[in-house]
């Protein structure tokens, strides 16, 4: 038996109520078609979704955890960037 693994794929599923596809996990598959079938079996067996995307994990460029200091921390003390200082009229919904 070959010890070589199939490539890794990232799986995104859109739920019935959701508008966007959300990352749900990853799996191994030889190609996109198999990745799609595997995703159906592994990630939608409890009625989780109505649409699936599969993306080769190698196509994803991830931020480097070592850089999280300069990337994310400067936002921490800038609470004024959150629009929480306005009084919203009652008529406004879905904000």
């Amino acid at each position, binding site marked *: 038996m070959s010890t070589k693994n*199939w490539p890794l794929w990232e799986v995104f599923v859109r739920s019935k109520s959701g508008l966007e596809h959300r990352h749900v996990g990853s*799996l*191994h*598959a*030889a190609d996109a*078609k*198999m990745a799609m*079938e*595997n995703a*159906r*079996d*592994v990630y939608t*067996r409890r009625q989780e979704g109505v649409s699936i995307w599969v993306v080769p994990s190698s196509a994803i460029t991830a931020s480097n955890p070592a850089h999280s200091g300069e990337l994310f921390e400067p936002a921490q003390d800038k609470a004024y960037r959150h629009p929480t200082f306005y009084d919203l009229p009652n008529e406004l919904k879905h904000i």
Partner: protein
Amino acid sequence: MKDQLYQYLLMLGDNAMILGHRLSELCGHGPSLETDIALTNISLDLFGQVRNYFQYAAEVKGETNDEVTEDSIAFMRYPHEYRNTLLVEQPNKDFAFIITRQFFFDAYHLPLLEALMQSKDEQIAAIAHKSIKEVKYHLRFSSEWVKRLGDGTAESHNRMQTAVDYLYPYIGELVQETPIEKEMKEQGIGADLSLVRSKYYEKVKTVLQEATLSTPQFFGFHDGGKKGVHSEHHSHILSTLQYMQRTYPNMEW
């Protein structure tokens, strides 16, 4: 007439139960996490169908015998009372066997259910209607793998051809009409197997060709399962399947 309907339901249910059991043996032992889950999903689908058939069978039998339940039908019969075909009791030799057996069953199962959706018996028509979506996916899964492995590496091709050569002589029994099936067909309850057969063989031929696998040349099929005459593998399945109920009668958990 009621007894023939009962026997017919056993034929439908037993195929799904024995194949479902074979697939359940793979739980935790599939070649990869993904195929392991896929095969056990199929197993669960089949057991869901079995429950529908046996609940109805218990109802049919219940008019004369109120001791019969879906569990007693599943667990307390003797080997010769099981009416599954020989194909589905064949062992899990390797992944090629598992996939080929699955494909040979699914390609028959789909046209069978299409026919049963037209059944005059409302219960059978409803079960067929509910099951057919599952079976469409089973067939898609297994035929995809037949093509992938048949038209894959030299190793996968050889293993597939070995499995096809071994299992092909069992497919005729699926569409060979027994007296019970003939009676059910004439009453508009059962499927017309001659129509199922032409669709079945056509599908098998197309997929094997696409998979670059050759169709074995031979004369005559193995049969007997539908009449209760099984291969040696069958009793081993039953001893595992029935162990708990035989050892602790009427146990529940």
